[in-house]
């Protein structure tokens, strides 16, 4: 039985060949940059509050919907009323701001009153927020799927738009504008984040709060403000990922955030929870794992492959790839 599965996979690898492998690599990188952006939000919040923010995946989903709302407000993908470059920038800006404030509001209402509560309380609260967001969007959208139709954006008469133009091709496999856009935007945002966290005064305060909240508070750091800012930044990244997802895959609905968020959290765990470079690395790894398992094993198994990866990592190396081993002091 096992041999059979293995031979199938080898056959699949042979028949797809190098162009197939390259297209899987490309898909994996694009998907992985989305995972990485969301995983950053998880890992930052976990690092600073030791809280698994279940609602983060749903913030990403709301971000995708805000981007869709902006697109529709300017005529939709088929007949945009303004040129597409400012339109896309506007979609990103509004969605990022909206998700950011949503994240801050969630922290304010659902997590801040629970700072001193037993640890299970904020987790259950986060679960409640996640479910509240999901059901609310389900109510507002009547459980419908909403199509971005990003591939038609800017195209004449509903044809394929410039987003699907190839930037370059490798052995006949094109890398399109939207794929390049996703990867480059993700890299740029991560660059900004790394600068913010490691090169500014705010980042220093944030790392101090993550290291020891009480000590940081005694050093005069306004920890509540830093925590709010952390939620804001993480949610901004999730909102950007939502718009990218919409432009790239083009279909958004209320349950989108749950599984995607779960995989992104897996990415954060694989990379080492609390570690910012780890989240990026883990995101790319999970994206590649999902893409290659879809291509070689079959799409219906890709979730299980990611799950196996999570279990394996937790058993073999619970600190993740780049995480540091925290020593618990009593």
């Amino acid at each position, binding site marked *: 039985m096992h041999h059979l599965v293995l031979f199938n996979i080898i056959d699949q690898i042979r028949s797809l060949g190098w162009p197939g492998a390259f297209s899987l690599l490309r898909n994996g990188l694009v998907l992985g940059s989305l995972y990485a952006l969301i995983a950053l939000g998880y890992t930052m919040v976990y690092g600073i509050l030791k809280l698994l923010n279940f609602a983060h995946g749903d913030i990403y989903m709301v971000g995708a919907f805000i981007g869709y709302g902006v697109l529709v407000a300017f005529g939709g993908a088929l007949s945009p009323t303004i040129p597409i470059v400012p339109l896309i920038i506007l979609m990103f800006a509004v969605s990022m701001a909206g998700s950011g404030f949503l994240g801050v509001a969630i922290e304010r209402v659902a997590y801040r009153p629970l700072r001193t509560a037993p640890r299970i309380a904020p987790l259950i609260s986060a679960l*409640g927020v996640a479910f509240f967001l999901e059901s609310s969007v389900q*109510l507002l959208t009547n459980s419908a799927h909403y199509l971005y139709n990003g591939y038609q954006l800017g195209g004449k008469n509903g044809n394929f738009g410039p987003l699907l133009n190839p930037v370059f091709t490798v052995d006949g496999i094109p890398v399109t504008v939207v794929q390049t856009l996703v990867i480059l935007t993700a890299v740029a945002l991560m660059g900004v984040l790394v600068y913010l966290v490691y090169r500014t005064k705010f980042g220093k305060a944030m790392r101090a709060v993550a290291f020891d909240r009480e000590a940081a508070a005694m050093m005069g750091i306004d920890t509540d403000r830093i925590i709010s800012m952390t939620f804001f930044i993480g949610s901004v990244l999730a909102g950007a990922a939502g718009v990218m997802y919409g432009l790239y895959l083009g279909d958004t609905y209320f349950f989108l955030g749950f599984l995607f968020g779960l995989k992104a959290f897996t990415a954060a765990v694989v990379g080492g929870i609390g570690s910012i470079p780890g989240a990026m690395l883990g995101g790319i790894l999970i994206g590649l794992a999902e893409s290659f398992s879809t291509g070689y094993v079959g799409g*219906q198994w890709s979730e299980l492959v990611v799950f196996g990866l999570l279990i394996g990592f937790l058993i073999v190396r619970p600190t993740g790839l780049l995480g540091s081993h925290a020593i618990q002091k*009593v």
Partner: protein
Amino acid sequence: MSDTPDTPGPPEPPPEPQSSAESGPKIGVDSWVASHGGRSGRSGPIGSISRAWESIPDVARFLAFVAIALSLPFWLLKSEGDLFNFGLFTLLFIGMGLGLNVDVGFAGLLDLGYVAAFGIGGYAYALLSSGYYGIHWPAEVVIPIAMLAAVIPAAVLGFSARRLLGDYLAIVTLFFAEAFLVFTNVSNPTIFGKGITGGANGIPQADPLTFFGYQLTSSKQLYFFLVGAVALVAAALYFANQSRTGRAWRASREDPLAAEVMSIPVNRLKILAFIFSWAVAGLFGAIYVAILTSAVSTNYSIGLLITIYAVIILGGLGSIAGVFVGAIIINCVFVFLEPQTDHPEAKRWIFYGVIILLVATLKPWYKAVVLCVGTIASGFIVHAIVSATAGSAWTSGKTVAGAGWLSHWVVIPKVSHGNVNNLLYIGLVVAVVLVAMLKGWWRIIALGPTIYLAAVVWENVLTENPGVTAFILFGAMLVGLMIKRPQGLLGTARVEIV
């Protein structure tokens, strides 16, 4: 307890303010912990009910439940539909809650994969007792197998979670539940010529429960069987909780490190708690499938998980009696919110009842009065403004199911406007966030219009979408309970001493 009816039952009555000021902090008791416990024990009518409740001995409560449950089909739940919707499903929720209460409540492990165990038990029953593979084993054989099938992944997960902190465990179990859904719904590997889980269609036509040749088919038979099963499981878990193991679970819940130092085998206890939980889930999962006669993977979604969490958290984590109370309340909310219900007016009473209860718990009393006046006044003001400016078409709508007088206070447009409704809902969420940020009198002043807005949204939007509404309420309830009353209705307050 026998001499005067007004003596409080529990041994620690809240101290009078002046006497505690005289005697200072109690010796041997952390003053903050004591005041916290006192405050949460006293809070409002819920506190006094739970105090009265605690003075009843456990055995009496248990016997009262069994007696009332056995008599219900003869006076309250006479119709077949009521018995099925209220009786059977409440008992199923109790069963599920009892199982989840072991690992979340007793042992303090955040288990988010519980629905998978419920599903595994169900699928095991559907595979071994249906026409799908042509196997028709009796229930007394299949149910132990179903429980075993649910226990094996529990042991594996518990084992892999040995080294994991609480949050990692949560994510692993949540992912396990999701992987279970994907496996049953999408993967569906072919075994013996058929997809083993039946894909999206699930496995139809499961046999009715058959014990030793005796078939349970009518709702009444199933109801009495379930009362017995729930009572048995509840009694077993009660004794487990009272035992050495139960004490060790509590110890490792409160402080795993200290428990470990006291040579309590924390990891083994975690696995044991998992096994207990998932075995109960497997049992009731099998019964659930036998009642519904099919196993479909969409039944085991995260919605069910949230519902069971709502049950045990509303009732109080770690409290067996709380599971019963929580299940009754949650299931009634579910049934009353259904679109085709025999009690359409009950939706309204749920909403206004909760609002009135919350306002009534407000202290001091004049704040509650100001809030009431503010809410009612803002209603009439808004109603007058809308009918004067936007015309009578915006205010002449009818409420759902009776209570026509409400339409003089709540703005109900004649025709439902989707976008306006969406804006109202978003406005309500924003208003609640703002109210949560305000303090003191500003909060009371802002709360009045917010409650009115909630009433408008409830009458216009939420009663139109009952299925989603229940889940919105549950999500909001989890957050609200965690902030205001984390011990639920009947749980004991926990204080983490740092």
